[in-house]
C-alpha cells in the first residue's frame, strides 16, 4: 500500500555530452503521465544537472512538457557526469521531496547512477524494465526480462521511492507538448564531504551522429551472419535505401566486423520498435529478439526454415537473401 508519505514521480533528465535532453527522458515522461493518472493525478517532476550558462535554455526546453517541477543543480563542475556528485546530491533531494516513484533511463550513465542512489536510500531498484504499470494496490509493477530474455519477471518494491531503470527505445513518445506552468527550482546544496576521485582524461566519440537513426526509424532492415560478408551488407544497404529504411545488425555480425557496434540491435545493443522490421539472414537468438520483438510487423528472410526467428516473425519468408533481394531491387528498378 502507498505509505501516504511519499508522493509523485521523479524522473532523472540525463543530458547528452552535447547538452541535449536524452530521448529516453521523453519516453519516461510519457509513461509517467500514464502512471501519474493511474495514481490519481500525482505530480511529475524532473531533476537535471547542468552548467550555469545553459540554465535559461533549459528553462525554456522544459516548459510545456507537462512537468510540475524541475529541480536543477547548476555548477561548472556538472559539465561532465560524476557518479559521486550526482548520486549524493540526488539522494539529498529525494530525502527532501519524497517521491513515490523514481525513474532513470537505462543508459550506461543511468545504470552507473541508479544503483548508487537506491543503495544509499536503502530502497529497491529494478533494472532495465520493459513494462511499468500501477497494480491494484497502487504500487509500481516493474516487468523485466531475465535469463537472457527467456523469462519475464514482474517485480514489486517494499520501500520508497520505488525505483526503476528503462532502456531507451522501450516506450513510445506520443507527444512531448503538454501545456503546464512548470516551476524551476534550484535546490541548496554544498560539496562538503564530497570528493570525486575519478578524473576524466579524455573522451572519444564513437557515434556518427548525435541521434542514432535507429531510434526514430519507421522501417529497419537488419542483417545477421546469414549475410556472410561485406557484399551481403552492401546488398542490405542497397535494399534499405530502396525502401527508405535504416540498417541494423546482430551482435554476431558486429563482432565479425561486418557492421559498426553503433547499429547493433539486441540485449547488449539497442532496443528498437519500428513499424516494420525486416530480419535478413538472422537466426533469431533470444539476445537479438529482446531488442526488436516490439516492432509492429516483423518480416524474416532466412534460408534455414528451422531458424528460431520464424517463431516470432509475422511474415516468415524461407528463401535465400542473395536471390530474393537482387530480384526485388530489379523489380523496383523497372
Amino acid at each position: 500500500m502507498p505509505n501516504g508519505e511519499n508522493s509523485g514521480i521523479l524522473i532523472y533528465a540525463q543530458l547528452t555530452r552535447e547538452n541535449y535532453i536524452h530521448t529516453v527522458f521523453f519516453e519516461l515522461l510519457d509513461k509517467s503521465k500514464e502512471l501519474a493518472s493511474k495514481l490519481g493525478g500525482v505530480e511529475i517532476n524532473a531533476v537535471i544537472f547542468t552548467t550555469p550558462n545553459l540554465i535559461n535554455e533549459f528553462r525554456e526546453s522544459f516548459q510545456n512538457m507537462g512537468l510540475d517541477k524541475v529541480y536543477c543543480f547548476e555548477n561548472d563542475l556538472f559539465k561532465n557526469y560524476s557518479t559521486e556528485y550526482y548520486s549524493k546530491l540526488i539522494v539529498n533531494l529525494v530525502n527532501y521531496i519524497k517521491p513515490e516513484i523514481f525513474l532513470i533511463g537505462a543508459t550506461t550513465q543511468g545504470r552507473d547512477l541508479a544503483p548508487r542512489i537506491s543503495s544509499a536510500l536503502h530502497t529497491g531498484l529494478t533494472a532495465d524494465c520493459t513494462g511499468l504499470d500501477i497494480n491494484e494496490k497502487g504500487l509500481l509493477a516493474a516487468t523485466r526480462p531475465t535469463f537472457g530474455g527467456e523469462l519475464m519477471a514482474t517485480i514489486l518494491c517494499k520501500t520508497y521511492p520505488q525505483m526503476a531503470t528503462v532502456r531507451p527505445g522501450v516506450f513510445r513518445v506520443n507527444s512531448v507538448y503538454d501545456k503546464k506552468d512548470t516551476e524551476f527550482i534550484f535546490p541548496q546544496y554544498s560539496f562538503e564531504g564530497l570528493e570525486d576521485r575519478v578524473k576524466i582524461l579524455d573522451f572519444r566519440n564513437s557515434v556518427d551522429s548525435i541521434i542514432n537513426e535507429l531510434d526514430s526509424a519507421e522501417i529497419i532492415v537488419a542483417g545477421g551472419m546469414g549475410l556472410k560478408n561485406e557484399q551481403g551488407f552492401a546488398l542490405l544497404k542497397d535494399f534499405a535505401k530502396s525502401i527508405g529504411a535504416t540498417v541494423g545488425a546482430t551482435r554476431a555480425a558486429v563482432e565479425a566486423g561486418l557492421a559498426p557496434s553503433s547499429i547493433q540491435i539486441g540485449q547488449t545493443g539497442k532496443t528498437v520498435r519500428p513499424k516494420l522490421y525486416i530480419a535478413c539472414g538472422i537466426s533469431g537468438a533470444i539476445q537479438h529478439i529482446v531488442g526488436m520483438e516490439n516492432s509492429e510487423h516483423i518480416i524474416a528472410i532466412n534460408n534455414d526454415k528451422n531458424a528460431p526467428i520464424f517463431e516470432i516473425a509475422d511474415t516468415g519468408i524461407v528463401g535465400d537473401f542473395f536471390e530474393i533481394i537482387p530480384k526485388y531491387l530489379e523489380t523496383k528498378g523497372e
Partner: protein
Amino acid sequence: MKIALCVKQVPDTNDIKWTENNTLQREGVESILNPFDAYAAEFALDIKDKLKNTEITVFTMGPNQAQDMLRKLLALGCDNAVLISDRKFAGADTYATGKTIAQAIKTLLPDFDLIICGQFAVDGDTAQTGPCIASFLDIAQVTYVKELVNIDNKSIEVTRELDDGTERVKVTYPVLLCKLQDDFEPSRPLINGIKEALKKEIRICDLNCLGLEPENVGLKGSPTYVSKAFRNISNHNAQKYELSTEESVKLLDEKIKSVEVKNA
C-alpha cells in the same frame, strides 16, 4: 596491492529448459562462472602480472557447490577464496547481495585497494550489484571498464566503453571497477595447478562471521521481490512461407507496401 575479486556462479543461460507449466527448470542445468566475471578475473590477474606483491582474494556468495568455481580461480593464480554462504542469504536482491558482499569485504579484507566485478551477470543482467557494493563501502566506482591503460601503487587508469564513446579515466584507490568483456577469450593456464588449488583453504563466511542481522540479509533484507515470473512468449502471429523466389519477392513487396500505405 590488495584486490577483492567478486564473482558469481550462474546457470548456463544457453542451456535453459522449461517445464510443461512454463516455469524454469532448475534441476540439471549446468552452473558456470558468469562469463563477465571471467574477464574480471583476467583483469585482476593482469594487474598481478604487472604489480609485484599483488594479492587477489576471490569473494562469491552462493551455495556450497560454488567451491568448485573458487578452486578453479585459485588454480588460475588467485591467492585466497571466500565463500559467503548461509541459508539465510537465499533470495537476496541486488541491494541485500551488495550489502552482504560489502560487509564480507569490510570484515575479511578491510585494507583492500581495488574491488573488481563483472559488469553484468548473465542470469539477472541487472549490472547493479557492483555499484551497490561500492555504495555500501562509500568508495569510488568506475563501471563499463574495457582496458587497463596504466597502474601503479596509488592509482589506476582505464578506458570505459559507454553508449556514446570511449572515456579514459584515472582514479586513486580505493575503487570498485566493473569489467566489460574483452574482444578475446580469457585463456590463462592453470599456473598454480589444480593440485595446489585443492590444498588451499576456502574460507566459509556465514551470517555470524559477518555480524549482520537475519532481517538484513536474503529475501527478508531485500526491498524488491518477484511477484510474478512468466515465459516470454511472442505476440507476433508467426506465418511461414516457402515460395519460389518470384513469389517471395511479390510477398515482400506487398508487406512493405502495406506498411507504407498505413503511414501515408
